């Protein structure tokens, strides 16, 4: 009680004193910012080490709480990233497919240039028989694109492109192609270097090795070397003339001694056939008098 009696100033005056003091301080610190800098730095120097000390405790707790708070965040982010990744991989796949397709189409374009004097339609192989070789397959163009039975089908790239087969059936938007490696296929052909004609036919056994058979080649004196080019001949009534079929692999004289036969390596890779070109001009149309 003594103490209270000793300094019995009215609280009101203390309040007024403090307020005035503070206002003076505010005004001076506003007007002369620099004069307070040393005071501030001293106060800062005293407090900072203490804060540092406490901060080590604080950061400990902060780390603990952050684990929980960031968990949700991270989960969300992870989900989002996963989604993004999925879409990106999907896009990437599509791009790769497109790139692949581009290469295919470029090859086709090269082929188109090679046989430039025929009108052609590009088509995609959509369906094949389950074997390793495209004996019979379907393409995604049909009568609405002007395709007709007996039109020639080509494939491969510019330099290594050649005859694939012939259309045997046409639907509205599809067509069935019988390839030259099919067992029932026979193509009138000739050896380009000697102009001698022969018949190139598919053979089930050989087709599995990726080969064609040829027969009926006259046993003349001409020497036919391995690698001679075989093209469709002018005698054929279904195939246009001069389309590359393949290269001679082996020649042997038949028992009758009047003809020769042998094997041909087809120029088209029947193992992977995806895009083809269809010549939309029938051989018959070139004839002066159509058969019908």
């Amino acid at each position, binding site marked *: 009680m003594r103490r209270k009696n000793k300094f019995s100033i009215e609280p009101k005056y203390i309040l007024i004193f403090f307020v005035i003091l503070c206002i003076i*301080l505010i005004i001076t610190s506003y007007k002369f910012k620099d004069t307070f800098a040393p005071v501030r730095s001293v*106060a800062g120097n005293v407090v900072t080490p*203490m804060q540092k000390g406490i901060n080590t405790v604080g950061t400990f707790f902060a780390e603990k709480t952050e684990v929980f708070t960031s968990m949700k965040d991270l989960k969300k982010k992870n989900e989002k990233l996963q989604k993004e990744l999925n879409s990106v991989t999907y896009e990437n796949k599509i791009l790769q497919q497109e790139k692949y397709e581009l290469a295919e189409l470029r090859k086709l374009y090269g082929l188109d240039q090679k046989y430039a004097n025929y009108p052609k339609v590009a088509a995609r192989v959509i369906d094949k028989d389950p074997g390793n070789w495209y004996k019979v397959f379907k393409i995604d163009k049909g009568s609405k694109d002007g395709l007709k039975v007996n039109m020639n089908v080509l494939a491969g790239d510019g330099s290594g492109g050649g005859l694939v087969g012939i259309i045997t059936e046409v639907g509205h938007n599809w067509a069935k192609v019988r390839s030259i490696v099919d067992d029932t296929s026979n193509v009138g052909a000739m050896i380009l270097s000697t102009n001698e004609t022969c018949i190139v036919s598919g053979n089930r056994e050989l087709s599995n090795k990726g080969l064609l058979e040829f027969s009926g080649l006259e046993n003349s004196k001409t020497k036919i070397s391995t690698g001679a080019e075989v093209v469709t001949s002018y005698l054929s009534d279904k195939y246009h003339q001069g389309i590359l079929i393949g290269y001679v692999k082996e020649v042997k004289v038949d028992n009758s001694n009047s003809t020769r036969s042998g094997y041909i390596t087809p120029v088209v890779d029947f193992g992977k056939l995806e895009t083809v070109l269809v010549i939309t001009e029938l051989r018959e149309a070139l004839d002066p008098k159509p058969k019908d």
Partner: protein
Amino acid sequence: MKRFIITTVTVILCFLLQTTVFQSLALAGEVPNLMLVVVVAIAYMRGKKEGMYVGFASGMLIDLIYGDLIGMNAVLMVLVGYLVGICNEIYYRDQLSVPIVLVGVSDFLFNFVFYIFNFLLRGRFHVLYYIWYTILPEMVYTVLVACVLYKVLHSINYRLECKEDTEEVL
């Protein structure tokens, strides 16, 4: 003397906690105003004078180290100390609701006036935004912390008073 030392330590400790530990425990980006809780608690328990002293000291501490204008926080804290000190007349030892309400009200007013001087006068007119995203979250957090802190301060004060009483008797 003992009371002076203990009060000083309390103020400094709360200041340090507020600037360090609670910064990392901030909820919704807001830190509880521990200093205000201390000022309100002491003013409520001890009266206007001590409320003003503690308010001035803690306000100056904030101003010296973080404030732009020295005296800004101090004058507000002094006012809080004085106004809450008036309620010292209805001080009742075991009641928790009155000081908590006082903390909430004074925190709101403190921040509102602070906003007026620091933002409104510079042309930041989004009053509702500041109330909704800064003042109210801080108030809620401060009130929550005050529930605990007031009890601690109260028990310290209670022990000091017991000792003073015995000293006086002797």
